[in-house]
């Protein structure tokens, strides 16, 4: 049985981008943030932030909600892959190698 190509593609798409990894790490650390805070905390410009967030939302890893004019983003904890990613990130940042 070979690797599931779709799952492999998702893995590559998410982790091959420095910007997306940063966004995931920032959302894991700070919880829910609006667009400009995500951009500020990741050091990305706003266009890149919007693009990366769109990909992560489409892949079901990030959830978006609107409160008035504000769009807020957070990790979609209902997705079992997100649980895996947050667990990985927490361990990654809290283990002194």
């Amino acid at each position: 049985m070979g690797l599931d190509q779709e799952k492999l593609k998702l893995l590559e798409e998410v982790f091959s981008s420095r910007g997306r990894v940063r966004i995931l790490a920032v959302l894991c650390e700070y919880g829910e943030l609006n667009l400009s805070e995500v951009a500020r905390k990741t050091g990305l410009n706003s266009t890149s932030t919007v693009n990366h967030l769109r990909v992560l939302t489409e892949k079901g890893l990030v959830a978006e909600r609107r409160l008035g004019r504000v769009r807020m983003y957070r990790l979609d904890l209902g997705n079992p892959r997100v649980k895996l990613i947050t667990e990985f990130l927490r361990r990654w940042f809290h283990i002194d190698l």
Partner: protein
Amino acid sequence: MDVSRIFKDESLLDLSYVPPRLPRREEELRLLRSMFEPILRKPGSVAPRAVVTGGIGSGKTALTQRFGLDFEEEARARGLNFKCIHVNCQILRGSFFMILVETVRRIIPGFPRRGFGANELLDSLLELLEDENLYVLLILDDADSLLVKEGSTPVYALTRVYESKPERPRRLFPIFVLRDPGLMRNLNHATLSYLRGSIVKLRKYGLDDMIEVLEYRASLALRSGSYLDRTIRLIADMAAPMGDARYAIELLYRAGKYAETDESPVIMPEHVRKAYQSLEYYPGLTEALRSLSRHEKLFLLAVARCLERESEEAYVTMGEVEGLYRVLCESYGEKPRAHTQLWKYMRNLSFLSLLTVNPSGRGRRGRTTYMGLNVAASYLSKVLSKMLEGV
């Protein structure tokens, strides 16, 4: 580490501590519960609100916080997603906008601080509550500053928010904590009529009340055998004329500190007398000072030191204060703020009634601002220095 012979846990005499029980306020607690109890029976269908009024140190903050914590626990036990949010309007400069931002950020800490108007923010808050299926008891402490600054509008908006949205479940329940009930006269007729049946008045603590409050707090915070009945009675005698339990608790704490300094195993009446002498009575001052930023404290300290130096002067100029502020910044290892920022500090300190400000002096050339104090400069200087040194 040295173990105190007096204190079991001195943090339990901190003014911000909310004890598990509130002696002599049980009736008011029950009244509040009965006012808000319909939320538990029919969540979403009722929107109770309350106004709690009483003088300084009458237990308004402790009462509303204790009620909030207990009610939150009870609501959660019944399966409601319920949160009690306590905001201090004075610390938030009496601004409705800042109060709403703070409230939303207690639910989503990453919510932006800028970019909206108050009405828009209130709508966002309601949307958020809906989205999270959350019920919020919002305690607006020191709401006097909100009423002075913003008038009727915020009270009207918060109490009648669901009138224009009758289909929405009721999720936001405000409690306004007011020192001066007279401020309610400034509310418009419609708002006032809405609140009239929801007022909880706290009477001043009398001598017996004060004794019971002190005995209870002493039993929590002090070691048994470290205080005498007559010591408690003396403190109660000193604090009863003001009816201010906060002052009584501060006296007890300070007396305990004097006993420690003397290496005495017991707080004696003499320690209380020393505490009474050292603790000038300025109601609410410590809390107001604690709410200041480090630079506001330094600025106010500069005013106090200038006036201490010029003891015959009633006012000092902005120029004199600014000069000393810079010197103080250097000695406290802080980078001084710019002149415009100092103006903002001055305006805020005046709003908090910590400073009196006169725009221009008669018979003097040019325009400058004069600042004075309502509190003894030497006392203020001593208290601020201790706070800045973290003592």
